């Protein structure tokens, strides 16, 4: 039985407090009016040589170039104002989504392990259940965020703004799907479905611990299969709703599966990190380096899978170069060059080189250091999915973004380790437990 160490608890509180301060700073430093932005822009023109900034401006405002200069400046300031208003909201959204996605990915992995009757991973089930404990909290936080967005407290989802829609025929055509009530109903259905499976599966495995027959196990097997079907559909839809609709003019059929790849690799990495932490504290005596080897293999394999899907999506759009699609990558490539290309190094090149060797996959510090890199890489992946649509070229990775990430990380750590301390760390009633304990690769 794990006891939540007071040190870790204090650490998670500290993260939350620092995070809240960072986020609060983000909201307080947001310019309050377009006039402020004008002054800000003027200052930045003055301080950093005007030429460099101006070049960006002209690029960003291709369409407005035909208008007279005065109007262009006004429009630009207006635009920048909206972006800057969105910035702290986006930072919170990226962090909320990232940790929620880890939890959801873990849940999917967990269900797959049940359905495939894996014989190695049983000893890690309680760790996975701990990570998915964040799902209900994260889901509610996200839902609250969506409600706030639909109340026009922010402009992340431009299609929620009736004024924007009024002037945008493309969005009008999508209004059958992209409208606030339907969006919230869908979100509620996904979140409720996922949370239901999470709570139910937890109940069943705990019941199986002391059961004399396998009825709970069989039930869980069937429920997991049903969940995976539900997940296959809802995950795709969730990706369209929560991420793709931020760029309501853009569409890609691969998007849902691409997001899934990011999700599952982050999830497995988190499972590995939490397991190594608990093992280091002496709580997982039945987890050996073969289990870690398997997790590291999955980290390696899914990193490559992620790259495959990233490349497929990018290359096909780049190759055909159809204007309505390619803008998505043009803005990312122009304004986000370092994170956009940097994440490829972190998410692909680095794990490829480090986790290729079979011996390294058994060395904890190799897994931990690669794991942290992978998680940072996928945070950036989400960042590059969300930010260009909401803050455009006004992005900056600073106190607000770090604060939001730390805040949610603090909540995540608190919830996860608190949940882990609630049940024995070995799911002993599972019919494959013995196989898993003896597992050796």
């Amino acid at each position, binding site marked *: 039985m794990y006891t939540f160490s007071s040190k870790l608890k204090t650490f998670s509180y500290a993260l939350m407090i620092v995070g809240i301060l960072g986020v609060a700073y983000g909201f307080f430093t947001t310019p309050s009016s377009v006039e402020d932005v004008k002054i800000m822009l003027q200052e930045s023109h003055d301080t950093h040589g005007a030429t460099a900034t101006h070049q960006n401006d002209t690029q960003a405002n291709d369409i407005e170039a035909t208008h007279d200069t005065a109007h262009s400046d006004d429009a630009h300031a207006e635009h920048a104002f909206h972006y800057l208003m969105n910035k702290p909201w986006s930072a919170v959204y990226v962090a909320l989504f990232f940790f929620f996605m880890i939890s959801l990915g873990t849940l999917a992995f967990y269900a797959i392990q049940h359905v495939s009757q894996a014989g190695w991973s049983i000893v890690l089930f309680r760790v996975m259940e701990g990570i998915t404990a964040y799902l209900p909290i994260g889901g509610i936080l996200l839902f609250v965020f969506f409600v706030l967005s639909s109340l026009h407290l922010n402009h992340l989802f431009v299609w929620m703004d009736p004024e924007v829609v009024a002037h945008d025929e*493309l969005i009008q055509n*999508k209004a059958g799907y992209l409208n606030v009530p339907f969006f919230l109903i869908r979100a509620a259905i996904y979140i409720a479905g996922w949370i239901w499976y999470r709570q139910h599966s937890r109940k069943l495995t705990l019941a199986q611990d002391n059961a004399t027959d*396998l009825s709970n196990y069989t039930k869980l097997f069937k429920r997991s299969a049903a969940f995976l079907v539900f997940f*296959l559909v809802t995950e795709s839809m969730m990706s369209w709703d929560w991420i793709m609709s931020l760029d309501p003019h853009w569409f890609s059929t691969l998007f849902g599966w691409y997001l899934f790849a990011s999700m599952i690799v982050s999830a497995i990495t988190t499972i590995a990190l939490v397991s190594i932490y608990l093992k280091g504290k002496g709580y997982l005596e039945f987890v050996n380096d073969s289990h870690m080897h398997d997790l590291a293999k999955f980290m390696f394999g899914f990193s490559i899978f992620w790259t*495959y899907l990233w490349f497929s*999506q990018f290359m096909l759009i780049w190759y055909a170069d159809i204007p309505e699609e390619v803008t998505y990558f043009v803005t990312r490539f122009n304004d986000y060059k370092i994170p956009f290309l940097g994440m490829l190094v972190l998410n692909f090149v680095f794990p490829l080189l480090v986790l290729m060797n079979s011996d390294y996959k058994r060395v904890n510090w190799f897994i931990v250091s690669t794991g942290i890199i992978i998680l940072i890489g996928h945070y950036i992946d989400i960042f590059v999915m969300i930010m260009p649509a909401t803050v455009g070229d006004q992005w900056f990775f600073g106190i607000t973004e770090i604060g939001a990430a730390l805040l949610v990380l603090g909540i995540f750590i608190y919830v996860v380790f608190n949940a882990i301390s609630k049940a024995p760390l070995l799911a002993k009633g599972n*019919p494959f437990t013995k*196989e898993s304990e003896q597992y050796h690769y």
Partner: protein
Amino acid sequence: MSSHYEAPIRRPLIVGDKSYHDITLEVAAPVEGKANKLWWTAFTIALIAFLWGLGAIIYTIGTGIGVWGLNKTVGWAWDITNFVWWVGIGHAGTLISAVLLLFRQKWRMGINRSAEAMTIFSVVQAGLFPVIHMGRVWNAHFVLPIPNQFGTLWTNFNSPLLWDVFAISTYLSVSLVFWWTGLLPDFAMLRDRAVRPFQKKIYSLLSFGWTGRAKDWQRFEEVSLVLAGLATPLVLSVHTIVSFDFATSVIPGWHTTIFPPYFVAGAVFSGFAMVNTLLIIMRKVSNLEAYITKQHIELMNIVIMITGSIVGCAYITELFIAWYSGVEYEQYAFLNRATGPYWWAYLLMMSCNVLSPQFMWFKKLRTSIMFSFFISIVVNIGMWFERFVIIVTSLHRDYLPSSWTMFSPTFVDIGIYVGTIGFFFVLFLLYARTFPVIAQAEVKSILKSSGEAYKRYRDAGGKNPAPTKVVKVSTTTEEVKDTAVQKNDLLGSLGVFDNSTQKADDLKLISGVGPKLEKTLNTIGIYSFDQVSKMTEKEYDLLDSLLESFKGRAKRDDWAGQAKNLKNNG
């Protein structure tokens, strides 16, 4: 750890009380025996189809592509449909041997050999189409970047069709190597059992001098793992590249980013269906039901169900995004599929691919061999139509209404397709008679953990490691003193040898029988292979009680089986 431990809940993968030797015998039987009438009939039909297809190909090349049903708008139809279909079928083999190896699925061992053979033979069929659909086949070597006399005229590496060349050729060669390395221990087994010099020679050549030393096995395992690790990205990338042929274009209905993973899922889907079709027949005609069990069929059905659902999800995604995109051309492309002149093909594809695998959710249906066979055929038809629908319906109506047209195949299109099916079965039927169709070395490695008898032994409280001979059949044979009675008994079931009408065989050809033993057998009255081949458990026991010093040998060496071969081949 005790290496043979397996959770009791897992079902046995080898049915019946098999020993290592039983596996050898049953795997070698089709190779060592003679082909029956059924095989010859099937082979003749396949050969005729193949020759017919060959004729159609020669006619096409001699006369021109115009003999096909293609037109100026629809430049790709049956040729590329068949190409993608065959490549897709080929994917299951690599998936079974590589991906299932990486996921440590023991059940792959009963089916991987045949699945890989299927891969190789279907990639060969696929490889025909990129060549024969060219207008000028004789310039086909220009796709290769070879230095030449045209001032090093080079290929353009931007075309997915060129990537296809590399993808398919790499895929075929890697699959071939992967398959062949796995065959080495099995060929060695056939070599060691071969009685006739010609067979011995052939299998010695094929098995590359495999002797099965510890060091060899260790490297063998490592190579398999590395090749599996390489073949997995290969299998994904090959079909991805095939999908790029369409997805990189700007044709509505073709240009979509989901194609790479969706084509791969479709390939696994159709490939597994084809493996199911073939193995359901093979387990019956080659008597391999103990190794390709109902559970294998069920698991393949589950893979079909999963990939079918993924494909279904992709269909819905495509439909949704077509609407969501607001691009009229895209929307029309899907409207045309559903309600245009090829609505029947679309309907067929949807019902075969999306609906039919959903039946597999019912245990009763997925464990029914008849039903699985039926569905596997349905899926193959559906997947052919999927490729047809994607290719033809997107081409025949696109941007300019003035170039809208229809497509209908000619007998040459159909003839070539039928020809490739014939060719495939020619190869597969030859394979089934000359190759060990089950990876016996691998199957033997799971016998003690997943063999039915061993599992029963452990379930009854037996301890690991299980004894070599698990189920002791205690037969109380009465000590019969009178050897003459025993001789009569033995000859009664083996048949009396008549010196005047029959010719005595050289019994020394049976491995285990020397000159001395031959003489002893002759004194009992056994002269011919025919007699020996009739020996069963009862006769072995009788013989044992007659022989003083060779007890148990006849059964151990499987004299009956050997004699049967010698008799057939003599």
